[in-house]
């Protein structure tokens, strides 16, 4: 009876989330890419996809995108895992502040980050000025860093932007691993890298899978960085360029279809390679929380220097944006020549800003809440319930990472047009519902992957124990499972919140009236102002950064005692 009830609850949940994804992901996507699979007479065809594969420029673009994705994922995993291991495993001077700074690279609107990177590595940027001051550039020459050696630059910049995704997921996994296992291994003489490889790594694999799959797909479809480096022979840039054509472009939607297929294949591959994602915690008891160790003073100092270097390099675009926002002029010099608060005052005090902040808060709070709810259900179905169809739903929910924002935005328009069943969502009248849906769907993968890692790491025997003493399923979930996976949910939730706050494509297309603009659309509008737009956008970027940092701070502080230190200063202190 109970089992039958459970089965029907699981089936209902699968139908519910499947329905949500069908309605708000598959349908708009199908509307958007229909042109790739239907000929002018309305018949199904693969001729357009074949035409793309026949064109050498698009094939090369695809190869470049794949190479960027693999290289970026490797670099991000090394940096993110290394940082998380050091920060979660050891106490050293400055750790508390350094830990708080790690997510900074994710907290800039994409095009504002690009402004900062150009300021650093442009021809008249900081790095050339620095080399010039050291007389390393003969005859006043300027190295074109962003264009020469574009592949390495794109990989480095994308990895420095995305490694916090790995860090947050691995960090959450590390705080949940079983200290007894490592102590036992040490007792048997296993130390250092051997210990990490044989004991630590297997226990954090779910978190690593979560992060690696997101970074792989994200970097495969990353648009901003290759666009900024004028790296045009990359699939994402080719799609973006095709979407901007004023005439018809027979390739663009077929390219989207190919990217979708490739993404699904990539996701499947990484799932196979990292394997055992579905496995749940091994121990039949609550794991003993891990306590950071105190290294020797020399080692601690080395850790401080190394972590500062990584975090500092990754935060360089943020620093550049802050300086640019207050620069009177910054051209060919290491630091700005003259400071002013005029840009900041003009941008942050602009009429559009106050309204758009309120709008963004409304949209993003709702969408993050929806992400946490739907994402947890999907993760539970895939990892815990192992429901039939749950794997399909799980894989489906990763697709938003692969779909160009502009394609999805026009898909949403199509399903909410007058005369359609969802016309009541028409964004022209009020885009709130559709923007919340769009943000929710686009950021769902972050919550699902984090929650899945959480479920995979928490021992199912704890839930069974609760059930054996009479706790109902909801009570077990609320009192046992949820507290245990909260670090992972928080990691995913914060990413979803920050990235929704900074979402560009849906915001640009779906919010048409000034009264409904979210903050990113306002940043974009001010960026368009001729002459001073760059510094106005930088100023609003600074505001967005401040806001996100303080929100993370507040969430962390408010939930203190219920977490095991995903973002906050000291694991040791609060786990007691």
């Amino acid at each position, binding site marked *: 009876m109970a089992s039958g009830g459970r089965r029907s609850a699981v089936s209902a949940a699968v139908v519910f989330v499947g329905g949500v994804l069908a309605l708000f992901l598959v349908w708009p996507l199908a509307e958007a890419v229909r042109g790739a699979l239907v000929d*002018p*007479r*309305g018949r199904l065809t693969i*001729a*357009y996809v074949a*035409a793309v594969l*026949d*064109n*050498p*420029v698009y094939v090369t673009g695809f190869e470049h995108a794949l190479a960027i994705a693999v290289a970026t994922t490797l670099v991000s995993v090394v940096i993110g895992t290394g940082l998380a291991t050091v920060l979660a495993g050891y106490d050293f001077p400055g750790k508390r502040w350094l830990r708080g700074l790690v997510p900074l690279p994710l907290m800039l609107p994409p095009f504002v980050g690009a402004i900062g990177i*150009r300021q650093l590595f*442009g021809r*008249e940027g900081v790095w050339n000025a620095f080399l010039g001051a050291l007389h390393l550039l003969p005859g*006043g020459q*300027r190295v*074109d860093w962003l264009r020469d050696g574009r592949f390495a630059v794109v990989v480095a910049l994308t990895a420095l932007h995305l490694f916090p995704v790995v860090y947050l997921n691995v960090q959450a996994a590390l705080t949940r691993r079983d200290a007894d296992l490592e102590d036992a291994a040490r007792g048997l003489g296993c130390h250092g890298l051997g210990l990490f490889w044989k004991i630590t790594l297997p226990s954090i694999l779910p978190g690593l899978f979560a992060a690696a799959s997101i970074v792989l797909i994200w970097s495969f479809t990353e648009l901003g960085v290759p666009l900024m480096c*004028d790296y045009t*022979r990359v699939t994402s840039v080719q799609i973006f*360029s095709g979407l*901007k*054509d*004023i*005439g*018809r472009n*027979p390739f663009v939607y077929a390219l989207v279809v190919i990217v979708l297929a490739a993404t699904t294949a990539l996701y499947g591959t990484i799932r196979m390679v990292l394997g055992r994602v579905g496995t749940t915690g091994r121990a039949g008891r609550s794991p003993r929380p891990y306590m950071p160790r105190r290294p020797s003073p020399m080692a601690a100092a080395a850790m401080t220097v190394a972590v500062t270097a990584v975090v500092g390099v990754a935060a360089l675009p943020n620093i550049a944006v802050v300086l640019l926002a207050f620069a009177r002029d910054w*051209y060919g010099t290491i630091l700005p020549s003259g400071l002013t608060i005029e840009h900041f*005052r*003009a941008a*942050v*005090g602009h*009429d*559009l*800003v*106050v309204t758009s*902040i309120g709008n963004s808060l409304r949209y993003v709070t709702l969408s993050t809440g929806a992400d946490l709810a739907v994402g947890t259900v999907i993760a539970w179905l895939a990892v815990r319930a192992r429901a039939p169809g749950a794997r399909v739903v799980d894989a489906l929910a990763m697709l938003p990472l692969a779909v160009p924002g*502009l394609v999805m935005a*026009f898909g949403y328009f*199509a399903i909410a047009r*007058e*005369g359609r069943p969802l016309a009541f969502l028409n964004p*022209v009248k009020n885009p709130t519902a559709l923007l919340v849906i769009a943000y929710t769907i686009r950021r769902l993968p972050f919550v699902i992957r984090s929650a899945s890692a959480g479920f995979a790491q928490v021992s199912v025997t704890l839930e069974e124990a609760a059930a054996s003493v009479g706790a109902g399923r909801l009570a077990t979930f609320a009192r046992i499972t949820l507290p245990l996976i909260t670090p992972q949910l928080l990691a995913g939730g914060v990413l979803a919140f920050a990235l929704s706050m900074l979402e560009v494509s849906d915001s640009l*297309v779906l919010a*048409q009236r000034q*009264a409904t603009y979210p903050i990113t659309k306002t940043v974009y509008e001010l960026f368009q*102002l*001729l*002459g001073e737009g760059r510094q106005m956008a930088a100023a609003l970027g600074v*505001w967005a950064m*401040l806001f996100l940092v*303080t*929100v993370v701070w*507040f969430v*962390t*502080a*408010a939930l*203190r005692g219920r977490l095991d230190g995903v973002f906050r*200063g*000291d694991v*040791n*202190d609060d786990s007691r």
Partner: protein
Amino acid sequence: MTSSRRLSPLGAGAAVLAVLGLPFLARSARPGPAPSKPAADTRANAPETLIVMTPSNEAVRYELGRAFVAYMGRRGRKVEVDWRAVGGTAEIGRYLTAQYEASFRRYWTGALGHRWSAAVAGAFARPAAPGATGEAAEARRAFLASNVGCGADLLFGGGSPEGVRHANAGRLVDAGVVTRHPELFGGDEPGAIPPQLAGEPLWDREGRWVGVCLSSFGICFNRDGLARLALFRPPTAWEALAAPRYQGELALADPTKSGSVATSFEMIIQSQMSRALADAPPGADPATRSAFARREGWARAMRLIRRIGANARYFTDAAAKIPLDVSTGDAAAGMCIDYYGRSQIEASAAAGHPERVGFASPVGETAYNADPVGLLRGAPHRELAVAFIEFLLSEEGQKLWDFRRGTPGGPDRYTLRRLPILPRLYDPALEEYRADADNPYEDAKSFEYRESWTEPLVGAMAFIIRAMCVEPETELADAYRALAEARFPPRATSLFDDLALVDYAAASGPIRAALNAPDPLEQAHWATRLTRHFLALYREVAALARQGL
């Protein structure tokens, strides 16, 4: 661990509130006029609303919206402008196309009771052939006779090619302004706006759109960048940009992304055709001379565009990126809309460096393009929309485009630096108020535009430039570099200048036909064929040049 090291929720909450309060603080500290009220007004005397689709930036929207509200206020009417911004020209085009298709489909299947088909969908927004019959022609007639709409009143901005495109599709309708104002559209009337300027239409004879201001493409340059390349004279003609020293230094606009950019490339072709006409066999009859000019001018222009393209850093869809990259020194020079260039110079001057950025208009090689406003079919507030068009064409509206901020009748927050379309605004008496001394009506006299020579080929030209320069950019740049390093050896150079697949005959024949074919696959096959051809060509040129051949 002491509690002082813990994060305090109270402190963190206060920090969030402080950050949220910053915009209010900055707003209260801002000098100048009080901020405008938000659009929503729920009082009983709620204003009439005008809905305008536009790619124009906030500066244009702010100044025109503010002035129109005041203009109507003096006529006893309370109005507000609801600007609808869905992105740039491409996004607006897609949005309007989708909205009108959905509206017409409802009308066709609902009110008219017909069946929707691919043929109807493909035909209702395309001009029908004269005397056409059948379902497709009926759909076209039904659309043109209908009042189906997209919920907006006006389309404003995007360049005259957008006005022409949406008017031809039937999405724009006659606002009656052209017939009601012979003093403005009377052809030879003194002070009237001519129908064309150097071949470019300034208003639609059927009244579906009218131009309200003018812009052109020129060359913006960074003097530090030029000095670094040992180029001591600023480029003032397109040909100057073909110099191999500009390798990787040019920021160019993509003609497949904007009709205005395509027009400026068309002007390069027109000017080369004019020069070729001078070289035509003197004794030949006019038809032979004209054919020679078209064939030879096209070839010269394509070779020139290929050399300029070989120097490109990129071909962008974002016109504002070009002056920005030039001003930051990432590009030494770029192809730039005039008011973007002027605004960037002003910004550099404001930062204390007026000498850093410059702008030159290639005289006789550039067209003036009108920025249009047009009444959308099914406009819900037609009468107010017409009033807005008339305001834009009034002296009061026209002064906003180029009068300096704070001058009598000028803008109050942003100097827009765009050229008004009303000829009388170029009266010397107004010069003291204007930000720019340019007079497009004088400048354009140096240029003779022959519409039939290039106008039908603009689409094919953009398609060819994409296949010839944009797609194979790496191989093209490499070939040109190899040629320059080998001092242009004859065999390699002759191969580089080969235009066999994309000469005038091919462009006006099979390529143009493929672009107009109902099935986009034909276009795709041509694109692939040309791309393969040029990739192989440039690789061979580079190999030959490196052998000194």
